[in-house]
């Protein structure tokens, strides 16, 4: 055998095969990239471009094409009282739904985390609301509190629950908490299962009360799950749309006008995509920040352990 060079004896890969692999690789990615290009990245780029131009109609439809306005429109959107109200409503909605949703999911998970006859039945019931979409949950609530035909014909200050500036957002939040309870229960149960049973057993043997076991062992060990649920819950509350559209359409007095509903209303009902795009970028930044926070925290939590 003629030994010339190392790389010839152990050929890393035939160039022809490498070329073929590369071509197959690109071909396999092509369908996904085509869809992403047209329906994710193009509209995203458009979101950044649109706010620099003003909607033709907004200056009397004299001009056919949109007029370049620089940063003016960005500024006017983000400093408007409407946008501030939208952010405030969304934050309030997040505060109402996320902690309560996690706490209730955890309560159900802890209660169902024991070996008892028939416990699987209860587990199935507790996770059952994952079968209801937001629209289903909203319509159930809508029907049940209907002031004329509902089961609970509640009126506050002469108007229905969903027309009351004070109760509308709380109602929307309640529907959301119930609808996401199944998911919260499943996630919390999975978290509980990662805690070794003998650890809890040892604590019990040492004479720790159930309450103490929960606060000093279960809860600290559950932090990664709680972080995850908190961030994912916050992201989804910033994307909340169906419940607002079905229950209140953003009213009364814009008290339930969440960020995503605002984008929909501006772009579709009012037809001003240029303004909607600025709000959409606002939503994107919030989701991005929350995602980064999650990745950071996840890493730190892992270090601690």
């Amino acid at each position, binding site marked *: 055998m003629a030994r010339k060079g190392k790389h010839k004896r152990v050929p890393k890969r035939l160039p022809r095969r*490498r070329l073929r*692999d*590369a071509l*197959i*690789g690109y071909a*396999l990615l092509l*369908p*996904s*990239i*085509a*869809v*992403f290009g*047209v*329906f994710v*990245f*193009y*509209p995203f780029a458009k*979101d950044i471009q649109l706010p620099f131009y003003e909607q033709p109609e907004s200056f009397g439809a004299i001009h056919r094409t949109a007029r370049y306005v620089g940063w003016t429109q960005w500024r006017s959107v983000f400093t408007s009282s409407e946008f501030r109200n939208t952010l405030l409503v969304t934050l309030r909605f997040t505060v109402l739904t996320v902690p309560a949703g996690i706490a209730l999911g955890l309560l*159900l998970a802890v*209660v*169902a985390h*024991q*070996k*008892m*006859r028939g416990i699987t039945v209860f587990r*199935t*019931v*507790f*996770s059952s*609301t994952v*079968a209801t*979409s*937001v*629209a*289903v*949950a909203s*319509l*159930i609530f809508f*029907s*049940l509190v209907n002031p*004329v*035909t509902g*089961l609970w014909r509640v009126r506050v200050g002469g108007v229905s629950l969903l027309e009351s500036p004070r109760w509308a957002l709380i109602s929307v939040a309640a529907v959301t908490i*119930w609808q996401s309870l199944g998911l919260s229960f*499943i*996630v919390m149960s*999975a978290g509980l299962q990662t805690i070794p049973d003998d650890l809890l057993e040892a604590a019990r043997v040492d004479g720790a009360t159930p309450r103490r076991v929960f606060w000093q062992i279960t809860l600290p060990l559950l932090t*990664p799950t709680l972080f995850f649920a908190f961030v*994912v819950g916050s992201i989804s509350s910033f994307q909340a*749309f*169906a419940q607002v*559209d079905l229950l209140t359409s953003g009213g009364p007095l814009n008290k339930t006008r969440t960020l*995503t509903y605002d984008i929909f209303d501006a772009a*579709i009902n009012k037809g001003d*995509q240029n303004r909607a795009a600025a709000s*959409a*970028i606002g*939503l*994107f930044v919030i*989701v991005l920040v929350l995602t980064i926070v999650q990745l950071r925290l996840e890493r730190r939590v892992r270090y601690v352990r």
Partner: protein
Amino acid sequence: MSVDVEAMPPAHAAEPPEPPEGSGPVAGRRPWARVTVRYVVLIVLAAIVLFPIYITVVNSLLKPVDIISRPIKWFPTAPQWGNYADAWSNGHFSRYLINSAIVAAGITLGQTVSAVLAAYAFAFLEFPLRRTLFVVFLTTLMIPGEVTFFTNVNTVRSLGWYDSYAALIVPFLATGFGAFLLRQSFMTVPNDLREAAALDGYGHMRFLARIVVPISRPAIGAMGLFAFLGAWNQYLWPLVVTKSDRLRTVQIGLRALRGTQIDQISVTYAGTVLAFLPIAIILVVFSKQLVRGLTAGAVKG
């Protein structure tokens, strides 16, 4: 009592032994009381969680008069199955359900195929820009549909797809999340298998179809279930790209039920049940995949 346990035939003994509480005479009544309390707590919580669904099912089987009249009927003594027939035909729910099934099935199939192909490329092939392209796939996870839908409506209009199945399905034929999930699963395929397959003369496509896909069936199943649920529950997108009743999905069909008159409220309740029943059945059948899919991100293995 304690004698029975010993005398039990082996078949029954195969059941996991009950916790010792309550077995000894000294333990007395308190453990028994504790178990009862636990069951009471479980039953009360279950009743609270189920209440909205229960009352919806009950009302869907009542006459409108009986829904409105007081005292409240907690049980349908004479179930009005006709309400379902009404929702099915007059309420157009047969149409809505078929539409949702077509859209969800199309999206599930498309996402599964595109994600399997992409995941294979990322897991088994080497080519320039592979890492960059993988990051591009992950980036799509940070751009939610709520940020892009209105420009996509324009795109769909200019393609002539407005108010069509294509508009409902095509934008969702790719998934960054699914591709990521399947890549993770494909990377666990042992190298030996790959080499063995290569020795047998398997090309990439045959290796993918005959070995990788069968091995990764659990992950692909979880991904598919996820895709189906997501597609079935979509709301914003079907709302903005369809206008005709003929193309309404179930979720949007529900939206139209809000304004119905008093004599239609039974149909509203029946329609609500019809909208979630298919998903409830699917979830019962695939509960294992669901839990796996939902907790994939929450708990690190």
